[in-house]
């Protein structure tokens, strides 16, 4: 049925609005430390995002949780300030400082009112160059992380990810929980913390982005004061590259939840693969694009099987996954998974239509400016672009890369990636795996999903 087309705008071919000329300056300090800066004076605050290569996968065997523990301790006393004094000082100037560790990177964020810039950067510098690692702080943080580890084991969303990684990667470092286990946490000594900070928080593995009310000259001077005392070179272990086993597997953690939480994954693509951008667009059409995706249409809209179903790419430095996740009541897990597998196979076999691709492109190019609306989000984008070595002109080039993708590219990458027979599936709940609960189970179960998309610079 043709409906009245009053929305004349809908029919226009969408031309992605040119991204506001984002003036990204490459600032190099007198001492040779580089940062990317966007000066933005209209709000009196400054955001700095920092990453060092070297994350949880660098934890020594038997001491999983080390990077995470360091990240929890850097603001627990530094220089001449103990933990209480350091944190009071931060609150007195209303600065916000946080550290965390993901698989490949150790990251930090500093936010400050522009007027308190000097003191905020001074405290940050103390945290990264002179952490005290005092025994009472170490034991307190160890106890707090111990609680996180224990509580994680009560959470279906955590359990399903842990089960997936163990099934998929065995004892590879990427399969270790970021916080470690009760045993590895207990094995971490003060010397390990000191050694990690000295070995990872260096200058040759450092990326910095800054957005806010600060000029290039002002930042240049601050960079040396803040980072200049770090050692020149980091020392990082080699992480073995890893790929997923073929043949597929389903792991079930039987727990008494009415809704099963399902995570499925197959081999993905590294960020520097020539097909990464086509894969990124393919993901949007399959399961990344919310209500514009095939899985959302088939699983949620048509059948009411789930509140949320989604897929995403997860490229790491030494591995790459394509994940999907869905939650549905136990009785309908098999039915839902059979639809998911069917949709993956269908896209692999038939590709997508030109209209689907065109719609995906107008969303992905048209929404790109939405990632650059806050100082915080701009800083995050610039850091991601640096970590992936995409180049300082990437913001200008990126929409062109999307536009250049064809339906043939999508068909090729769908065939490369979407292999339901290789899916590793983890389920937490009490799932009925029959594709049709009233019929004999004639399908062997496979796939499920992982975690979350994050702020990747795609």
């Amino acid at each position, binding site marked *: 049925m043709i*409906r009245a087309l*009053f*929305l004349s*705008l*809908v029919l226009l071919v*969408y031309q992605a609005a040119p991204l*506001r000329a984002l003036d990204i300056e490459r600032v190099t300090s007198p001492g040779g430390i580089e940062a990317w800066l966007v000066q933005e004076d*209209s*709000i009196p*605050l400054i*955001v700095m995002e920092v990453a060092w290569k070297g994350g949880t996968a660098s934890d020594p065997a038997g001491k999983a949780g080390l990077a995470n523990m360091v990240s929890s301790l850097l603001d627990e006393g530094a220089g001449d300030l103990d*933990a*209480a004094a350091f944190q*009071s000082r931060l*609150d*007195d*100037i*209303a600065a*916000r400082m946080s550290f965390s560790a993901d698989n490949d990177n150790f990251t930090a964020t500093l*936010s400050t*009112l522009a*007027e308190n810039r000097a003191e905020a950067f001074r405290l940050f510098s103390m945290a990264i160059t002179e952490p005290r690692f005092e025994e009472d702080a170490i034991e*307190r943080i160890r*106890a*707090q992380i*111990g*609680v996180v580890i*224990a*509580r994680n*084991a*009560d959470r279906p969303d955590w359990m399903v990810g842990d089960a997936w990684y163990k099934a998929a990667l065995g004892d590879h470092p990427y399969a270790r929980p970021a916080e470690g286990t009760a045993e590895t946490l207990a094995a971490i000594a003060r010397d390990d913390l000191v050694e990690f900070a000295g070995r990872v928080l260096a200058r040759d593995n450092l990326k910095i982005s800054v957005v806010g009310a600060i000029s290039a000259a002002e930042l240049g001077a601050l960079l040396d004061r803040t980072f200049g005392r770090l050692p020149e070179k980091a020392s990082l272990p080699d992480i073995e590259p890893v790929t997923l086993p073929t043949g597929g597997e389903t792991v079930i953690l039987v*727990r*008494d*939840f009415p*809704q099963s939480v399902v995570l499925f994954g197959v081999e993905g693509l590294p960020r520097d693969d020539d097909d990464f951008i086509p894969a990124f667009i393919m993901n949007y059409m399959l399961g990344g694009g*919310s*209500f*514009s995706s095939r899985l*959302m249409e088939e699983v*949620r809209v048509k059948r*009411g099987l*789930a*509140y*949320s179903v989604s897929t995403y790419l997860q490229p790491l430095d030494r591995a790459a996954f394509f994940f999907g996740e869905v*939650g*549905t*009541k136990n009785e309908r897990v098999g039915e839902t998974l059979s639809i998911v597998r069917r949709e993956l196979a269908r896209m692999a076999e038939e590709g997508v239509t030109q209209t689907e691709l065109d*719609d995906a492109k*107008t*969303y992905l*190019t*048209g*929404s*790109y*400016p*939405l990632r650059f*609306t*806050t*100082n*915080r989000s701009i800083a995050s984008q610039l850091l991601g672009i640096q970590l992936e070595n995409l180049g300082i002109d990437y913001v200008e080039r990126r929409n062109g890369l999307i536009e250049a993708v064809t339906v043939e590219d999508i068909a090729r990458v769908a065939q490369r990636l979407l292999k339901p027979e290789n899916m590793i599936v983890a389920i937490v709940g009490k799932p009925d795996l029959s594709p049709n609960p009233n019929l004999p189970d004639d399908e062997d179960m496979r796939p499920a999903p992982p975690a979350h998309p994050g702020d990747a610079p795609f």
Partner: protein
Amino acid sequence: MFRPRYLAALPFAALLVAVLLGLVFGSERGLTAGAPPESFTLGNGMNVLVIPDHRAPVVTHMVWYNVGAADETPGKTGLAHFLEHLMFKGTEKIEPGQFSRIVARNGGQDNAFTHYDFTAYFQVIAKDRLPLVMEMEADRMTNLVLTDAEVLPERDVVMEERRMRIENNPVATLQSEMGAALYGDHPYGRDIIGHMNEIAELTTEDALDFYARFYTPNNATLIVAGDITARELRPLAEQFYGSIAERAPTFIRERPQAVWPEEDLRIERRDPRVTQATWLRYFPAPSYRKAETRDRAAFDVLAEILGRGTTSRLYRALVVEQGIASGVQSWYEGSRLDDGRFGIYALPRVGGDLASLETAIEAEVARLLEGGITDDELARARTVIAASAVYARDNQRTMAYAYGEGLMTGLAISQIHEWPESVRRVTKDDVMRVARLVFENNPSVTGELLPGGES
């Protein structure tokens, strides 16, 4: 963040919302955002608010309805939220399921949320697409088309959402029971998403009746934040929304007064899926709207000093000095049309018990009531809260949300805008006065989530 169709009030996410909200406005020491946002009213009674932020050529477009889960008829809980889902199903002009696809095709993101006192819909999109989303939002204000073919699967979706948020989450289940105990028969004691057995019975007709009664321009507020001025917005608002006729009387909300517990209540919930215990306590407290003017900002200052962050009293005592908790926090929920609440939660260390946490928390509260607070504590709390207003200005959506929530819960634009000034004026006496309101002769509801029990 763009998690399709979510509820604003989630377990523990509510903490964040409450915190954000207390913090969202203005600041001291010359950091105030200048003049308050401009507002005007259309001929049909629809209110309009503009929050300029010209850093990027992007706008956040929101329509807020003055109706929420607390306005549902008993027996039909979940209807406000269910209708929120169904608003994406189509109109005479938009095919079922096309609303979000059209927004996406134009580079935009859209979503909606439901709370006790409001329901809101929004799109974030390039500025030049603003007329498109305004036209579509105006269209679905009165032209919604619903059929069982779309409605019934969506009801299953909502039941899955409830399973995800509450049935699968023992802490949320406990919070749900505690809310009912605190607010009694007041609708704030219900789950926003509704009770499972009542969601299951909601019909297309129920949704359309609710829609016809409450979705009318005189019951709605438009908020646009981002790269826009009032001068630019006014003609667009007149064109797309001003032309919609009122189709129902303006909704004057008259709800029963909350009847607070007459004595302290305790809910102990054992759950075999849980290995780590959780302790929670809710105290009756007025909302921002119902509080005395001089008390209004003091509740947030109290929450900050007592239990926000690592410099707070509860954290220092329970986590650092006594080493019995791994986390502890206090918060104030004032963004309610009717009454609010004050809350404290604590997590024990592994192997620790809840009784010692409770004893230690009560001792800290008693110490505060007896000994008062220091000048340093007051100054630090005011600084942190006022600075949060500046941080909030970094995000146009945060600003739009803060103003929308304030307006829907009975605050005036000027009160929201001048919030940091109110915080700056809070004195030690103010903090102690509201501390006595919260902690003296004010029966509370305590919740304990413990391992064990029947599966």
